[in-house]
């Protein structure tokens, strides 16, 4: 605790760096995964291709990916883009399957009703299928987000910033309190982002609560 109180400004700076590495991949990953998941849900061949490629990319250990991206992207070894791209790859790899499954689970009666009401396929996707799939997609996003926040710390071993720096610093200077503080901060940050996604999910799917209240005495 003493260590934490004496280093509040450092912790604040590392926390901001951590968010800078972790938040863009979560958002970019989600934005990329939605059209890919839509494609995977449309076509069997595309589905197995996309899911196999995702599975393969998801298998690559994070430290290896951080090192392998610079030659592929033409970036320097400590370019923040490496971490952001690597975590985006993991997020997309995890969410493509989730989005495809979420869209697949939309009842066909609902899709057919929308078609019968005259929705074009794009409008039907945006205003019917995607909203119906939100609970499944957000469940996947929670996993991806928490994992991204934890993975940013790995970058510290090759010199990236973020809360992982508390671990490498604690190791080099032998300050166990700093390691514990770092673990607690990462867990708290993950919990906060997880909670935020749950709240966003509630706001996006008001019908899930209205539906359960129907028939209940007021």
């Amino acid at each position, binding site marked *: 605790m003493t260590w934490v109180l004496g280093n509040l400004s450092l912790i604040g700076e590392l926390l901001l760096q951590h968010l800078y590495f972790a938040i863009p991949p979560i958002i970019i990953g989600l934005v990329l995964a939605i059209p890919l998941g839509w494609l995977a*849900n*449309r076509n*069997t061949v595309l*589905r197995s291709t996309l899911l196999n490629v995702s*599975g*393969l990319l*998801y*298998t*690559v*250990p*994070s*430290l*290896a*990916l951080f*090192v*392998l991206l610079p*030659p592929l992207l033409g970036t320097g*070894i400590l370019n923040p883009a490496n971490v952001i791209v690597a975590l985006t790859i*993991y997020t997309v790899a*995890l969410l493509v*399957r*989730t989005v495809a499954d979420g869209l*697949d689970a939309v009842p*066909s009666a609902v899709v057919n009703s929308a078609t019968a009401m005259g929705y074009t396929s794009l409008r039907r996707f945006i205003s019917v299928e995607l909203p119906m799939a939100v609970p499944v997609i957000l*469940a*996947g996003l929670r*996993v*991806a987000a*928490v*994992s991204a*926040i*934890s*993975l940013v*710390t*790995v970058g*510290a*071993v*090759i*010199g990236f910033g973020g*809360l*992982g720096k508390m*671990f*490498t610093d*604690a*190791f080099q200077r*032998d300050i*166990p309190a700093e*390691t*514990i503080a*770092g*673990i607690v901060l*990462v*867990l708290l940050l*993950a*919990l906060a982002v*997880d909670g935020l996604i749950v709240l966003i999910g509630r706001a996006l799917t008001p019908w899930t609560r209205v539906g359960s209240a129907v028939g209940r005495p007021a």
Partner: protein
Amino acid sequence: MSYFGWLFDPANWTGSGGIPARLVEHLGYVALAMIIALVIALPVGAWVGHTGRGGFLVVGSANALRALPTLGVLILLVTPFGLSIIGPLIALVVLAVPPLLAGTYAGVRNVDPAVVDAARGMGMRGGEVLWRVELPNALPLIIGGVRSAVLQVISTATIAAYVGLGGLGRYIFDGLAQRDFPQMIGGSLLVALLAIVVDLLLAALQKVVVSPGLQAAPRSGPRRLRAMPTTRPAAARAA
């Protein structure tokens, strides 16, 4: 292409720091950690799944692990154990147990109750039901848990080179210290290949040992009936 010079230099393929020796080290850590983790997680997961007691603890521990920074755990264990193999090994086991527990628990728990009833109706005792009905039916999810755990352990063992462990991660950290970028790339390629090959082997093993009746039905149309889940549930990577 100069990046690959290190990888194909014959000098890096011999001796105690050579690629074969580092690969064997890496696989040794993975095997040791997985054996210990399996001995702990399989009986507990099977028991919890069979009796239904304590399921929320199993699921909760697997969920909490997602956020646990592996680097922090590795470094925390340096303080009591120094730079020996003990600390990293404990970390690897700690990270491998939750996916194994969750897979075994979910596998046993999700066995069709009608199948379990039929087994009891045939006069099987609790132990027989578990060994001859529930565990074979649970194999797809158990192997799913094994795949997640193995990936976790391969990745974390790589990072553990930071706290002095051997294995393929050494090339990444030695390369970093010597400003030898091709060595870092070569080491990373080897780690990535190892993870992919081991995962494919386990996927093949799953095809061989799981009863054909439990293999997922091929997808016939856009709105298929769901077969038993044979892939791992959305397991988050923590390393």
